[in-house]
């Protein structure tokens, strides 16, 4: 996993509650043998007017002009702003895969579904819980004439808006550490290389037949 670096990015406001993982990435895309390439199909049913199938070329598919990500101003958005219970429904890890593949690195919402919340951290995506009133205020700014951009500082746990407003947020210390260091479970386990090697050395002597 890549380390999470501070960045300044555009906010895409997606004004819906209870956005479920099937909406984030519909079930037909789970046939894929890859963990990447889901970005073009993110929110497929909302984003396009036709039915999406894995492997399709999305360049010329008819787009829904009403959908926020089809607004050229948000095409490069890195921060998604949404309402409560974001990521509910199935546990598919394809949901964070699709969001990060599109380019999102932070999601702001008043609340997240549990599994999605955990899956996000495993994939370098930072879900931030903010007070519903703060979210309201952000929606007001993000839907204005010029898009809202926010500077995210994970170490300081702050969001700085383009007008200078600073908002602080909470994050679990372990998750923060793993994101900042770019560590996934595998990365963490690999910090124990010496222990694993020592174990192997001992077992190689005791039970050599296990080491073909």
């Amino acid at each position, binding site marked *: *996993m890549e380390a999470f670096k501070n960045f300044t990015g555009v906010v895409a406001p997606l004004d819906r509650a209870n956005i479920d993982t099937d909406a984030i990435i519909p079930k037909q895309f789970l*046939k894929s*043998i*890859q*963990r*990447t390439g889901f970005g073009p199909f993110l929110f497929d049913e909302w984003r396009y007017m036709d039915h999406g199938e894995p492997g399709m070329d999305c360049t010329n598919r008819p787009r829904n002009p009403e959908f926020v990500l089809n607004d050229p101003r948000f095409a490069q958005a890195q921060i998604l702003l949404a309402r409560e219970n974001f990521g509910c429904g199935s546990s598919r*890890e394809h949901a964070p895969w699709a969001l990060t593949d599109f380019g999102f690195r932070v999601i702001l919402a008043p609340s997240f579904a549990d599994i999605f919340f955990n899956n996000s951290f*495993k994939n370098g995506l930072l879900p931030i819980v903010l007070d519903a009133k703060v979210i309201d205020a952000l929606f007001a700014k993000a839907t204005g004439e010029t898009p809202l951009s926010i500077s995210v500082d994970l170490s300081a746990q702050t969001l700085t808006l383009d007008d200078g407003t600073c908002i602080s947020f909470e994050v679990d210390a372990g998750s923060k550490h793993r994101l900042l260091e770019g560590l*996934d*479970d*595998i990365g963490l*386990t*690999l910090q*124990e290389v010496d*222990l*694993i090697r020592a*174990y*192997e050395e001992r*077992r190689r002597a005791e*039970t*050599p*037949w*296990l080491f*073909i």
Partner: protein
Amino acid sequence: MVAKTLYDKLWDEHVVRVDDNGTALLYIDRQLIHEVTSPQAFEGLRLAGRTPWRTSANLAVPDHNVPTTDRAAGISDPVSRIQVEALGTNCLTFGITELGMGDKRQGVVHVIGPEQGFTLPGSTVVCGDSHTATHGAFGALAFGIGTSEVEHALATQTLIQRKSKSMLISVDGKLGTGVTAKDIVLAIIGKIGTAGGTGYVIEFGGEAIRELTMEGRMTVCNMAIEAGARAGLIGVDDKTVEYMRGRPLAPQGELFERAAAHWLTLSSDEGAQFDAVIHMDAADIKPQVTWGTSPEMVLPIDGKVPSPEDADDEVKANGIRRALDYMGLEAGTPLTEVRPDKIFIGSCTNSRIEDLRAAALIAKGRKVAESIKLAMVVPGSGLVKEQAEAEGLDKIFVEAGFEWREPGCSMCLAMNADRLESGERCASTSNRNFEGRQGQGGRTHLVSPAMAAAAAVTGHFVDVREL
């Protein structure tokens, strides 16, 4: 010294490190890989620029999507074909041995592991597949994992685990003739339920288990997962050691003898404490048939389809109602009056040589009933197929009217072309009778190979002991 269970011994031998809160880093000796749950794991390695920790600790085989008919024609479904091809490419890239579709050692992942001697007593074995429990028959700690864990095991040769509780199921006394390992495990699941083993590793013991062949023990452990257990286990004895001797990937010569001496220590100590102990009397077990849509919906062959009114509570009554409806069965119908349309002898539960012998014994000199649309025998591996052909079993099956197929998972889960049509009823030697498991709307009855063959030749379920 404290008396230890087999599970304690296997666990203790594999802990690399343990946290204060009980989370352990467990060393993984062996990983089996198939085409369905591995692509994203390999992709993950590639994205992170990682390589497998120890390539020789992995063995791959395509099984879920492979055709059981003419292999030369390849795989017609493009999605299936891509998955199988991806496995080949990934194995090539990462230097992992793959027994591909054209290799005569190819077969169902849980058949080939032991057959090749890849599964060793006392090892930890994982696979992105719940029926990895099978390998516990060798006194190996074997369990199924998800795709992220497949990647974790590939990259680090370890997994982050917490220890389960331990349960002993002792099947005491001797089995009657015509009663098999499949009947034992179905009877166990009927008794403890599909959640009965949740949170546990189940060790199977007792005289009836000790009397089983290694093939029979694999059948029992295979379905431990159907009882909700994390893993199934059977202690090592001389039979285990003899099965291992001469297997291609097992140790050879002097090293084998050294290994065997260690393996023979792998059973629960006298007086070891289990968190739960269940006794069953082998003599009470009759040939079993499932009637519903969960493996716990099972009865002896002389039973009758239950009624919702027999249930103790409303939740159970509803379960029975739904199952009867899905299965197209009337309460009170004797199981011997239930008539399958198709017969499937195969899967990682029952596709080994002994299973085929048991089915052939019934099929010999008889004919598949007119009412049966299709009766198929799918050997667990190319080597099982070869052995069966050397013994003339294929001829017995073909003469009786069975189709003799190429190895793979086949109609166990219908990911390839072999499947039930909606409403079709199947006598199947596989392990799951869930709704739609063998094809949308398909109706599965789980039985032993002998019982499946008996249903094939009579056209209805029948007590194999009466044939």
